[in-house]
């Protein structure tokens, strides 16, 4: 039974089909809204789906300089990681999460797989643009991981200390803590952490002003430059999934509150919250900001979000409750 349930979770909901669809939706909304902010009409919401189908039909170009196998296989790494992660995150009021393995640390590592896939693929392509892109991707990963880690530790500590330990990485416990004590978003001590987390989202997804690795004006999409056809489709899909994961994580960590007990309402509420996160952190930001230089990005992440996150961490460490 549980095996069957696992397969269902994996293939249909909340992973698999649902996650992919949600990812497409997030991308579509993002593009539409982005266009609207720029006073354009913009593509229809289902444009990402059309793009996917189109890309799957294209032939695959592989550079002579590429390492064929690795180049072809690399997109899978991130896809697998994201799809596995999608099953883990609980949707409060709808899905309890894959409790036995829904561990914040595991998720943290899985969250890095799209970047890993991008970097391995870029590196394997043999293109100098991609190589520079990969190098930048790594640099920015180093930058945003620092505040991200502090935020995750802070949340884990908050929950753990309330449960009589020091930290708790179980996502299930994090949700149930908030169900009992109110969402983190209402805890003033956790607000800096939330802000820091939100700061990290554009860099994780790789959008302006932190799209430095792809930087189409300089690097012509960097890591993605040589990808086409199903490979590129896979990366796009992964990007969408990543939006789902990161926004779902934000929801789970900071505001997993439900509206009643009916699952469909809660699901819609969840989707809405995800949309809210994405539009706030991605769409609005990328529509209004210009791309930073790498050193600026590094400096930004290692100062502002780190400081914000540390404030919450120290407050939590001291047991301050406001």
């Amino acid at each position, binding site marked *: 039974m549980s095996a069957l349930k*696992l397969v269902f979770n*994996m*293939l249909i909901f909340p*992973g698999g089909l649902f996650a992919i669809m949600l990812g497409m939706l997030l991308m579509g909304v993002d593009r539409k809204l982005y266009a609207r902010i720029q006073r354009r009409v913009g593509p229809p919401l289902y444009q990402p789906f059309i793009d996917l189908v189109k890309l*799957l039909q*294209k*032939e*695959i*170009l*592989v*550079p*002579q*300089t590429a*390492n*064929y196998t*690795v180049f072809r296989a690399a997109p*899978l790494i991130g*896809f*697998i*990681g994201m*799809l596995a992660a999608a*099953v883990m995150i609980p949707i409060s009021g709808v899905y309890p999460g894959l409790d*036995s*393995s829904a*561990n*914040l*640390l595991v998720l*943290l*590592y*899985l969250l*890095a797989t799209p970047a*890993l896939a991008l970097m*391995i693929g870029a*590196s*394997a392509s043999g*293109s100098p*643009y991609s*190589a520079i892109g990969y*190098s930048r991707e*790594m*640099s920015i*990963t*180093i*930058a945003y*991981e620092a505040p991200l*880690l502090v935020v995750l*530790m802070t949340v884990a*500590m908050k929950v753990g200390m309330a449960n009589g*330990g*020091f*930290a708790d*990485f179980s996502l299930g416990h994090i949700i149930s803590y908030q169900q009992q004590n109110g969402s983190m978003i209402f805890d003033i001590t956790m607000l800096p952490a939330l802000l820091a987390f939100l700061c990290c989202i554009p860099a994780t997804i790789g959008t302006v002003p932190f799209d430095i690795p792809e930087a189409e004006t300089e690097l*012509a999409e960097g890591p993605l430059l040589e990808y086409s*056809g*199903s490979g590129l489709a*896979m990366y796009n899909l992964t990007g969408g999934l990543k939006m789902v994961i990161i926004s779902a994580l934000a929801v789970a960590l900071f505001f997993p509150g439900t509206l009643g007990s009916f699952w469909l309402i809660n699901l819609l509420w969840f989707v809405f919250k995800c949309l809210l996160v994405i539009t706030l952190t991605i769409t609005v930001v990328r529509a209004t900001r210009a791309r930073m230089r*790498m*050193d600026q990005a*590094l400096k930004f992440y290692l100062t502002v979000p780190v400081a914000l996150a540390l404030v919450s961490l120290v407050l939590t*460490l001291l047991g301050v409750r406001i």
Partner: protein
Amino acid sequence: MYVLSVLGLVILVVFELLALKSQKLMRLLVFSSIAEVGYIILGLGTGTFSGQTGALLHLSYQFLMRGLVFAAAAAIIVRGGSQSIEKLRGMGRTSPFLTTMFAFGIFSVMGLSPFKGSISKFLIVYSNIEKGYYVFAVLAIIGSVIEAWYFINVIQSICFKAAESEKGAAAEAQIKNAGQKKMKPAAEPAAKASKGSMPVNILIVLLGLLTALASLFPESIVKLAEDLAAGMFGISNPTPLPVFDTPWPILVLVPYIGAFAVFIIGHFIPKLTGILAVGIAAATVCLAWFDGSIDGLSRLFTLIISFVVLMASLYSIGYFKGETNNKRYFFFLLLTLGSLIGVAVSTQFGNFYVFWELMTWASYLMIVHEPTEKALKAGFKYFMMCATGAYFMQFGILMLHNELGTFDMNAVSSAAGSLPPAVLLAVVLAFVIGTGVKAGLVPMHSWLPEAHPAAPSPVSSLLSGILTKIGIYGLIRVLFAVFGVGVLAQLGSAGKLSGIGLLISVLGIATLLYGEIMALLQKDIKRLLAYSTMAQIGEITTTLGLGTYLSLVAGLYHVVNHAAMKGMLFLAVGILIHTLKTQEIVKLKGIGKVMPVTCGCMSIGILALMGLPPFGGFISKFLMLYAAVSAGYWYFGAFILLGSIIGAIYYIRLIRTIFFEKYEGPAVKEAPLVMLIPVMILTAVVVLNGLFPQYALNLVKAAADYVAAQGGMAVTTIPQIVVSWPVIVAIPMLGGLFVYFLGKRSKKTAGWISVAVMTASLAAIAVSSGRLDIFALSFALLIAFVALLNLLYSLGYMSHGHAQNRYYMFFIMMVGGLIGVATSKDMFAFFIFWEIMSSWTLYFSIIHEETQDALKEGFKYFIFNYIGASFAFLGMVMITANAGTFDIAAIAAKLGSLPVSVAASGIILLTVGFLMKAAVLPFRIDFQMHPATAPTPVSGYISSVLLKSAPYWLIRLLFIMGGAAMLGKLGMSGNTPVLMYVVSWIAGLTIIGAGAMALVQRGIKRLLIYSTVSQIGYIVLGLSLGTTLGMSGGLLHFINHMFFKDLLFLCAGAIMVQAHVTRLDEVGGLGRKMPFTLSFFMVGALSLAGIPPFSGFTSKWLIYEACMQQGQVFLALLSLAGSVLTMGYFLKFMHSAFFGTLPKKLENVKEAPWTMLVPMGILSAISLVLGVVPGLPLTVISKVLDMMNIPRPEFTLFGINTPLGAWQTGVVVILMLMAGVIGIGLFLLGNRKVRRTNAYTCGVSDITNDDIHVSAGNLYESPDEIIEKVHDTVVVPVFGNGEEVQK
């Protein structure tokens, strides 16, 4: 009467001084003779029977001997045609007979001759002491010193020095006919000339004979003088005079008479000289062995002396081959032997002193055997210093007799307690000075570094091996056997030491530091060894000053070892000097390659001197430390260690120069057998003393027991230092030798034999599983298993290398040491193996390529390890000495009851040593970790397996033996000892520091090395938390890292050997050429980065959780951030090496051979399994946790459950497989047509593949900048090396 004495004294001093100023021979002799009258008056002035007898005796002796001197001098003056001493130089060459008789006369006047000396002057000094005229006695002795000064000068000028004119001529002649013997032309006219004046010659011979007779049978003359004195001065009932001379024992007579026999027979049959001398020395050894009449202390020293002399005499046959004058050499050699034995076996202070003087005299003549300017100067200094020292001793002896009325040591011993403190102090100091000069203690050492290099090598060997030791003997005999600790304590004490003991120890420490530091600066190899001798003597005296039974055993054992080691080294160095005609170290470059036997022995001696096992020096160093710690003076031990660290620097440099530089000298052959045999025998002694210390220790114990019984010293049990070599260690150790000798033939053989040896070791460990605990057993199995893989890999990797048998030997031996480290059940054995593993085997493995870089890095790493081991050494001794046992289980049981200060310091020192081994806080990686220049299978092995010895022993020490609980007594923070937090933080900072440094590296191996340090940081962090999670995580990472890091190194090695590169900048695109290597690398890299579900993830995840569980959020953050860096540097490696474009020069690179791929494949497979099935290793780990009384973690085969969350590899793998199926499905769904294109270059078409490759140096610019900036501002100013950031 007093007036008379003063008059005598004035005459004495004034005329001695006048004689000193004289430049003319006759005038000098006359003044000197008048001074003797002063002595006579001084003697008469006391008005005592002894004084009067002494005066008369002196008169008669001087009359006779001076007669000889005057007659010879007159003849010399006539022959030389001048009065001036300066102009008489070189007469020894032209008139050997006259000058010999002249010298004989003068030495006799001074109371020195191969026969018994005259005792008249002693009597005069004695009588003054008797009367309480101490000042007179001292002045009389000073007079004797002045006399010795000018007489030796005269003898050197006339008898030994070359004439001014002759020097030039000789030099010319040498240039003209280099092949001819240079002595001949000079000797012939001399022979002619000496025939001229027959009557004078007859007179001189007669006087000489009389002198000899008077010296041989002094008793009748003494009797005569006594009667005369009694008659003349009307003393009816005279008190008996001190009897200076008692009959000589047979042990002394054999070499003495032998000396004359050799001299005479050698005169007629020169060829027999050496052989005869060897025979006599051998006979002496036998006599010494079977002589039951002498006590233990004497027996020990007699054996050492005669044995070393036997070796030196054998060697001398080869050394002096073809020289005409060797009968004189062997004569004095045997005289030295006789007098040394005389000193060692004397039970009377009179004899002791007489032999002491004779020994100085005879050895002086050996030092100046080749009378070069340098040798004469050194000899003069030696003689003057030792004679002066001896005069001090004489004064002390006479004072003793005056107080106690006897020279008999036993009698003195029993009465010593009643001596007034002032007298006792004076006597003791007199002895300390007398023996200290001989031993070369600072500040009485200055003869030593000059005499050693100036003397012929066999003589240096004796000087260092036994003459300095006789000083030690004197010290032990007088202070501890005759007086004893009880008496010494009367002179005041400092702490637990007697005042005198403290003095000696302080002198010892000064000597050892001075010696080591000076040796460091030397360019002359013999001077270096001479200073090193001082250092070793310093160690011995430092220990002896403690005045305990243990210190005695330790000091004596080091005497034995040092005699063998240094004796051998001087002989071996002598061979090199003899062959290359130079003493400069730089000119000995690479000589080890052409003279392997000599230099091989030498290197063993050097390793032994450094105190490395399994050689003798280690055991004695251990005993000395043990004695120091047992006595409560651990910092004496620290000084000894400090000294040997300095020593290690110049010794390893010496080994490097001799073996690993390029040889540029002339074509030379190995030395003749007659010189090699003694060197080899002494080497064997050095090795046997290390492997089977009990035999020599038995002799030493007998000596110490005797001293303890005599001197009232409490006998304590000495540590049971039986070095046991378990089969599992012996197999690789002997196997190494086996590989070396059998593998000389072909490269393949060496490799396959070593694979076989390692398989045998692995099997042996598996078979002996019952005798090991689970922790030791599993580590040992891993050690042998990975070694087996790396050896197999070496078959391919080394297939074009040189000296493969050597490589395999040291590698296997290193593994052997490591197995010992893992499986030892007692601390002593553990430390032996620790040193074997981390010192010479490692050094020789690392510098195998013999490039300048490799040598430099290997040197630094060796010293760093040596220092680290020294910390651990002291810590180990502190614990074992206080626990009184080596058995680890027993120590564990006792540890809690030991005094906190001692036990905790010991644990801290050991921990520091272990952490240094783990290369934590990598600010100077070039010192701390195995250098990148080592052959890759070795680098990989060190990184992945050998360094694990540090965390392994940290766990044993802190958690299985209970060290953490002991540290807790120093302060707790929560439920964790504060010091464990310190360790945690060190580990945490290491993770991030080394990770950051890895990120900026471009050297293929340097990157991996930093990575290793960072990863070991994780292990140490985990274990330092001491919780279920931390320990499980640490141990799991311990295992995981072993496999994936070795795998990564082997992949790196494959690249390096196939593409001939060492830096990541130089490669690119190899993935297409080496697909298997790439695949294996990916497995290793993903495991390293800990991408779930690869193996590194589980272990790191446990460690993060453990940190958080303990409230160490910042440590958790550090280690998490370290993982991000890990991903960064492995991607950098992957990109630079395997991806991107292939440089043109690497077009022809091929995949590695199967011998390399198979081990890599096995390691990958294991890494994969460990990642998916963490339950397998955790089963073993939980058994290890049981040993530490730490609760087991909750785990299944495919998952772990912790209070902070769960990790189900099984579920995640299933999820990922399903996701993979979906992904592949999408791929299959799409268009599958593939077209190869050119990479996009923005329309530029005239650039080559090489141009578009983004190499390692171009990656991660922004983070690199930050890291480099931090490094430059924080690390470089403190540690002073910017080299690590390779820009």
